[in-house]
């Protein structure tokens, strides 16, 4: 049996684009980005950094990435937590998720750290009203891990509302939110140009927000304000994805996107001008729990599916021959979707409920029973949609966005076209041997019956030895399947663990 190569991409380190070499010291190489532990970090990303022994992670912005002959370093300008500067707050009461960007000159502005100090990415949004700062949308605010709108001058030990032009030698624009445009430059272009390009969406005034809410946003016809929002969302905080996914997903996002203005409660970290707005979704979803808690991690909220489906008479559906008929027809019509990576303990009706809740489609579904060589951690199910369009769009949606189940696994969907194999009634069965025909005929009746009757093999027969060899093969195959799936499980755990580290608050 061939061995399997472990994929060690996830602990590997890779440099991104190089942007310069040191003037005096040729060993110094400056980079724009790097990949560490499977995550891509770029210049001006906000990250968590951890010092062993510290109680909490520190948060900062990467402003320089470079490598010397022997080490890899990043220069990080820090965001200060309110607790760290409590002595200097004075009258100021910080918001729930507020940080302060360090500025000025002095200790605590920045540090140069080895790359390994970085433990994950952080979503920090700037809510300052500074003209140079692209104003964040409600979506971005909701999804932010932290916000900042003031700076703390480490030299003067004061909290300032006005941002200086330079922090740590870098233009202050780099610290503000990324400009909202579709082209893939990382260095933000001058603010004046942006204002024209992205239109009115940059500065959402109260009246504009009201108007946006008033548009019923339907599938395929987003209100005019919604489209720039969709673009904003694409470019916010995930520059790493922009390269591959940014352009291609924007058009579909404006169709599938449900623009939400969530109920903002007082005291939530958002600009003070935002009115209290009610949730409007483009499809009325009876199962959605209102997303109103000022949770620091609102994206973790799960939607529960009630089995509120009307009781469909299922008595005739799942007779084996009938089901097979339907499967084959659906396969031919392109209405058959194979869902993978489900929880293996799901029942068929739960799969139907899931599809109903996620896609608003009524379907027939059946879990595929597990076999000795199927993965015990994944479940698969056949789902028959009402139309091939519905099937297509569901699979596309699963691809573009991710449908996550309760334990963090993403559901994969494949449309089956002609993938079902034909039942071959006279297929050969590997392992059953036939002796010469005329030999068999000359034997007595009982002997012939003995071959085909079920029996235990007796130890003194040729049959027994061969059977033992088969048993050996069966045992071996059991073992290698077990090893394979164990290996798979470990890989999954690795990735999930990485993911959890990244969103640590």
């Amino acid at each position, binding site marked *: 049996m061939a061995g399997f190569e472990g994929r060690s991409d996830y602990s590997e380190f890779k440099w991104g684009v190089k942007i310069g070499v040191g003037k005096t010291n040729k060993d110094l190489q400056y980079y724009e980005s790097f990949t560490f532990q*499977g995550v891509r970090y770029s210049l001006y990303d906000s990250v968590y950094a951890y010092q062993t022994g510290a109680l909490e992670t520190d948060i900062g912005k990467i402003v320089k990435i470079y490598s010397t002959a022997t080490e890899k370093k990043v220069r990080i300008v820090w965001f200060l937590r309110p607790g760290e500067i409590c002595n200097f707050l004075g009258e100021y009461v910080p918001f729930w998720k507020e940080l302060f960007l360090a500025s000025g000159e002095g200790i605590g502005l920045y540090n140069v750290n080895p790359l390994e100090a970085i433990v994950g990415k952080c979503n920090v949004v700037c809510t300052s009203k500074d003209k140079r700062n692209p104003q964040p949308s409600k979506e971005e605010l909701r999804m932010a891990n932290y916000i900042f709108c003031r700076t703390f001058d480490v030299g003067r030990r004061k909290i300032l509302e006005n941002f200086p032009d330079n922090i740590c030698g870098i233009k202050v624009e780099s610290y503000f939110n990324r400009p909202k445009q579709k082209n893939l430059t990382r260095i933000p272009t001058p603010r004046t140009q942006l204002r024209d390009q992205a239109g009115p969406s940059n500065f959402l005034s109260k009246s504009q927000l009201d108007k946006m809410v008033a548009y019923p946003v339907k599938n395929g016809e987003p209100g005019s304000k919604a489209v720039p929002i969709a673009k904003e969302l694409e470019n916010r905080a995930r520059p790493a994805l922009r390269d591959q996914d940014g352009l291609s997903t924007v058009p579909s996002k404006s169709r599938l996107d449900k623009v939400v203005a969530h109920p903002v409660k007082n005291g939530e970290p958002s600009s003070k001008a935002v009115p209290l707005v009610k949730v409007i979704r483009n499809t009325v979803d009876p199962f959605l729990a209102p997303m109103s808690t000022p949770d620091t991690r609102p994206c973790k909220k799960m939607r529960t599916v*009630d089995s509120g489906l009307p009781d469909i008479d299922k008595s005739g559906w799942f007779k084996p021959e009938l089901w097979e008929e339907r499967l084959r027809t659906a396969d031919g019509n392109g209405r058959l979707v194979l869902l993978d990576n489900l929880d293996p303990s799901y029942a068929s009706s739960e799969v139907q409920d899931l599809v109903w809740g996620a896609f608003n489609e009524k379907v027939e579904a059946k879990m*595929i*029973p597990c076999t000795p060589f199927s993965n015990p951690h994944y479940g698969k199910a056949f789902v028959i949609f009402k139309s091939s369009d519905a099937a297509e769009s569901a699979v596309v949606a699963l691809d573009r*966005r*991710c449908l996550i189940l309760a334990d963090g696994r993403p559901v994969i969907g494949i449309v089956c076209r002609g993938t079902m194999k034909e039942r071959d009634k006279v297929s050969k069965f590997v*392992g059953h041997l036939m002796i010469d025909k005329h030999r068999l005929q000359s034997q007595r009746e009982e002997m012939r019956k003995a071959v085909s009757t079920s029996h235990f093999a007796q130890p003194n027969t040729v049959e027994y030895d061969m059977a033992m060899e088969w048993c050996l093969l069966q045992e071996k195959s059991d073992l290698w399947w077990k090893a394979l799936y164990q290996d798979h499980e470990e890989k999954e755990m690795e990735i999930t663990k990485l993911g959890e580290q990244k969103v640590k608050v």
Partner: protein
Amino acid sequence: MEASEAQYAEFEGKVKRTIYLDNLSPQVNELIVRQAFDHFGTVESVQFIPNYLESKNIPQCALIEMKNPTQVNAIVSDIAQKPFMIGGMPRPVRARKAKMEMFDDRPVKPGRTIQFRWLEPNYPDFEVAKELKELARIHAVEAEYVLKKQLEDEEKLEEQHQEALKATHKKYKMVQSVIADGTTRQLARGYHLRVADD
């Protein structure tokens, strides 16, 4: 789709009474299986599991429901110790206790609700989810490969056995023909040996 506790418990009981049989020849039908297991105990039902996804030469699998769990345990341990043939030789069938996931008509576990959420591409978790999806695809390919290899191994083994069988068969034929046409007795007289009349 509400499954009551009782229904679920009943189904669990059924699972405990069921054997999962695989490595069955596709030519075996329900009658043969019933006859096979009749002397172990009472067979309540036999259900073959149709195979839609894999290639057609995979051996069949079946779920056999017996009267009570003790019979199931007896069968499983017997078959584990001595090779049991159904419908042909010499590949033995493999029996194990059935699990919930082997039944595709299982009821919903009571008290469980399905939870899910959609992730947009700019959530921090999105990349993780994408990676998991990629990984799942890779794993599927790996599993396919393993299965292919396994089938190849099985075919090789069968070839070997076929060869061995032919050779043995030839030997026996020869021996039998020699006895039948009297050569043995002649030789025995020549060598002054006794020929036992087996």
